[in-house]
């Protein structure tokens, strides 16, 4: 039906997801050791048949490619787990196939999450050759005691060495720190942050430690352990300090926990926050794909064995659900208010009907929690600190 396809392609141009672009997320579910705070879908496995995994990824890429034919791919993100444990051949094969399946943007951003171990860094050069052009490294702390307490298997020296190698291989390098740790004082954090800024290139992710249920930390916390975590007041002060110090270095928070020089933001992550489309491939990987005008939420089987065997049989998807207008409005609000430009209230209404109560907005504006400029609603720095409460106020229900 040629007529029809012309129509739908014109429609596609104005489709909602295009506000955010299109990215691909590849999840590698293995790590050398499981960190006690981590609730990502990560597993420690003695033997990994890299070839078999590569084949599974390739076939999933084909499958998803068929659903999203002709879309221009802006970004690829290898996340984990520890993708820096993928063999360069696997990464290579994947990226080759990606380029075959989707037309790529001129300057695609291809990120790989790396851990600062020697095994990991050994592959950097080959990753770069395969097309990876950005690395996000999990350094987590710049003092060895805290690294141990976080259960990390590398030292600060390891991390610095790995970071130097990465800088040589890749144009863009970012790293992650976890702060608001046990027994961390405001001044200790400030010193560490300043040290980090002196290392950083143009991007930093600074996460306050979250004690997640179901992790080793979570269990310890519930059992009354894990003492010395900062209270709300101290962690609020730490957050504020982080904003101030990073601001001095022109590394503003373009998202709650992500700081970058202008233009150096992670484009892939911005797709999430701008509520664009992304395909998720790999165990437990989530995707949001607009197909035939409907936004689907997809998720793969989490257990690596289950995922790979189902992927080999043709589809690793555990669940694919069409999101209602309300779901989409909720997700857009939840994600969009995290970034500095906030959300587009008009776009919010295009999901269905008007969802956000103007009185609520006015109330939050008067409390100094949000700003409203025309159709844009964004959280202020005060609002960011209590963003959950702000979102909760605005979140449409039913």
């Amino acid at each position, binding site marked *: 039906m040629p007529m029809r396809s012309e129509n739908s392609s014109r429609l596609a141009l104005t489709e909602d997801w295009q506000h955010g672009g299109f990215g691909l997320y590849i999840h590698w579910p293995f790590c050398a050791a499981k960190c006690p705070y981590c609730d990502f879908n990560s597993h420690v496995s003695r033997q990994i048949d890299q070839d078999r995994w590569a084949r599974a990824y390739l076939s999933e890429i084909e499958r998803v490619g068929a659903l999203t034919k002709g879309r221009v791919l802006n970004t690829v993100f290898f996340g984990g787990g520890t993708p820096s444990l993928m063999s360069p051949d696997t990464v290579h094969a994947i990226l080759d196939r990606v380029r075959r399946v989707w037309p790529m943007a001129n300057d695609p951003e291809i990120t790989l999450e790396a851990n600062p171990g020697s095994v990991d860094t050994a592959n950097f050069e080959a990753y770069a050759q395969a097309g990876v052009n950005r690395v996000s490294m999990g350094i987590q702390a710049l003092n060895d005691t805290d690294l141990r307490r976080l259960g990390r298997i590398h030292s600060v020296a390891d991390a610095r060495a790995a970071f130097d190698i990465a800088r040589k291989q890749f144009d863009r390098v970012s790293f992650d720190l976890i702060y608001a740790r046990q027994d961390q004082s405001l001044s200790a954090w400030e010193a560490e942050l300043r040290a980090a800024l002196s290392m950083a290139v143009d991007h930093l992710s600074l*996460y306050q430690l*979250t004690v997640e249920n179901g992790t080793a930390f979570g269990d310890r916390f519930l059992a009354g352990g894990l003492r010395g975590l900062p209270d709300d007041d101290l962690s609020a002060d730490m*957050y504020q300090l982080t904003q101030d110090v990073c601001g001095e270095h022109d590394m503003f928070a373009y998202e709650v926990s992500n700081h970058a020089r202008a233009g150096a933001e992670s484009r892939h992550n911005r797709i*999430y926050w701008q509520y664009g489309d992304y395909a998720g491939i790999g165990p437990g990987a989530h995707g949001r794909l607009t197909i035939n005008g409907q936004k689907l939420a997809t998720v793969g089987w989490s257990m690596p064995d289950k995922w790979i065997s189902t992927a080999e049989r043709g589809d690793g998807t555990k669940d694919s659900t069409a999101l209602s207008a309300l*779901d989409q409005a909720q997700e857009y609000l939840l994600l969009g208010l995290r970034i500095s430009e906030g959300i587009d209230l008009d776009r919010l209404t295009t999901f269905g009907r008007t969802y956000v109560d103007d009185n609520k907005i006015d109330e939050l504006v008067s409390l100094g929690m949000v700003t409203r400029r025309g159709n844009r609603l964004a959280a202020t720095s005060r609002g960011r*600190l*209590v963003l959950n*409460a702000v979102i909760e106020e605005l979140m449409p*229900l039913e």
Partner: protein
Amino acid sequence: MRSTGDFEPLDIRQILQFVHQHIAHRRGSRPVAQRQQHGLYRVFRPHQQGRDRPVIIVVDPTAQALTPRCGLCPDPEGHALNPPHHPRLPCNFPRHVAFLSVVCAARPAKPPAATYRATLTVAAFRIISARMTKLSHIRNFSIVAHIDHGKSTLADRLIQSTNTVSAREMKEQLLDAMDIERERGITIKANTVRIEYKAEDGETYILNLIDTPGHVDFAYEVSRSMRAVEGSLLVVDATQGVEAQTLANVYTAIDADHEIVPVLNKIDLPAAEPERICEQIEDVIGIDASDACLISAKTGIGIPSVLEAIVKRLPPPHEGDPDKPLKAMLVDSKYDPYLGVVVIVRVIDGVLKKGQRIKMMRTGGTYDIDRIGVYRPAMQEVKELGPGEIGYITAQIKQVRDTRVGDTITTEKKGCETALPGFKPSIPVVFCGLFPVDAADFEDMRDAIEKLALNDASFTSEMETSAALGFGFRCGFLGLLHLEVIRDRLEREYNIDLITTAPSVIYRIYMRDGSEIELHNPADMPDPSTIDHIEEPRIKATILVPDEYLGDVLKLCQDRRGIQLDLTYAGSRAMVVYDLPLNEVVFDFYDRLKSVTKGYASFDYQMLGYREDNLVKMQILVNDEPVDALSTMVHRDRAEMRGRAMCEKLKDLIPRHMFKIPIQAAIGGKVIARETLAALRKDVTAKCYGGDATRKKKLLEKQKAGKKKMRQFGKVDIPQEAFISALKMDG
């Protein structure tokens, strides 16, 4: 308990004369004569504590054969019984006569002139006298104890050791079937179970046990259960000893004319001190504990001795007559979603049968019985229930409200003439408003309240409207636990989120113009200038406490405006009696008592009456807006203290908002206490990427839905539980 000793010797001639004049004419009397092997009569009158009805016992345990001779007749030879009746005596009931004749079978020619002391109990008498009847193989009893002393666990063991349920179906506190009971580990509703026990004497007995609740709020359940049975197992925790509820239960049991078997439980625990506790039982309660059963309901030690004691020491039912018109006691009724109203009955006379058309004597309702059964503990249908038996019936009764506990059930036609005395109705003492969080739930709530009221006669409700809370109900409860139970059930079983307003007792307001108001709700308090004076309900509280905590208990009572009435010692424990305002007790007195005495004190109370005091209405303002649902009546002298305590509590109970919130207590516009709830500082998710959206969204949705459980007052969300919790005082 009237067990050994203290029997007044009586002359046989006096007895026979007495029998002739009084007892033989009354149903349920049991005069007989006993001859010992030596040919002597023994005649006893057991000492009866404070009761004016003498029971005369003349027993002949050696009588073997049934000979048709009357034992009531003053004729020393006895006379041949030739029913229908003896010309002079109304002994024309076959059953009655049967046992009488046993007794007079071996009667000697001449009664001896001498009188003797003896040691038989009413129970022993009844057992012997009822030997020839079916009744002799029935024992009806309640299990009573202070809270947590192990009643339900003992019931478990009795059920289990008689193989009433299979091992697979057995679970702890089997009878506590309601979710709330299982969760809190307490019994709320009394439960009846019929078990069969093959005793050491080779006979099989039917035991109907009633497991009762221990909490003081449900004392009414205990007393009415006792009315349906003849004996009680008094369970006493051998590590804790006699507690306030133990005493209260003994008094109720004595009132109900019960035979009491003391059972010392938890002897498996190292801290158990059975000898000391036995002494204590004798000292404090004044009943013989020398033959108390020593058991562990948990491990099963001593359970056989309890079963034997039930058979040997508890009396069989008072003899009833299956041929007389039906007379049954309505013990309890509950609503079953499948069967409708299920009525628990105790048959006195006559026989309950399927298809019978019955009449409730007090309410006048008539119904056709469609099911008859017994609890084992699952419902099991039986053909009929005869005198002395306990079971259930269903009869297409629509609402529990149509039944009244204590009512007499008889047949519509040829029914019995006199009704049973009935029970005093239970009266609610604590009131509060219940409102749906979501106004749209009001209709559902009305249905739910009706259904619960169907099941629970001691719970009252009437419609109420409030400016801030909309439509709801003003409800009355037996106590705070009862309130919590009903609220929990509404929320859980009927899925309605509720706001509970500050509980209140009933105040009597005497107006200047001479009129009088019963105030159930502080929000309805008239303008103080129109009031002459206010009276509040007072109670008599009995507290048992080990010496070392006495000071703390006295301080607590004093702080709660108590007036000491009595202080006595029983061993190393003090028994303190206080006159206290009910409103100082209903909310958290019991919790406080437990905490200041590390759980070693126990508590029981009775209503005393109303007394005038200097009472005022205290308002609470949250973010400068008065919250009516938090208004309470307080004593003027304690208002500042209570106001401060409430403001502090609310500061903890109300979640932080994005702005700071002043919380104030005021009397008639004058602020007497103030707190400020600081603004929320930090609440943000550190990491949120593509995959997290789903999870984080659910989390926020849940939180927001959780907020729905709060009610907005102005701009402030107040959680439902705040209204009760705010009243609980920590000091």
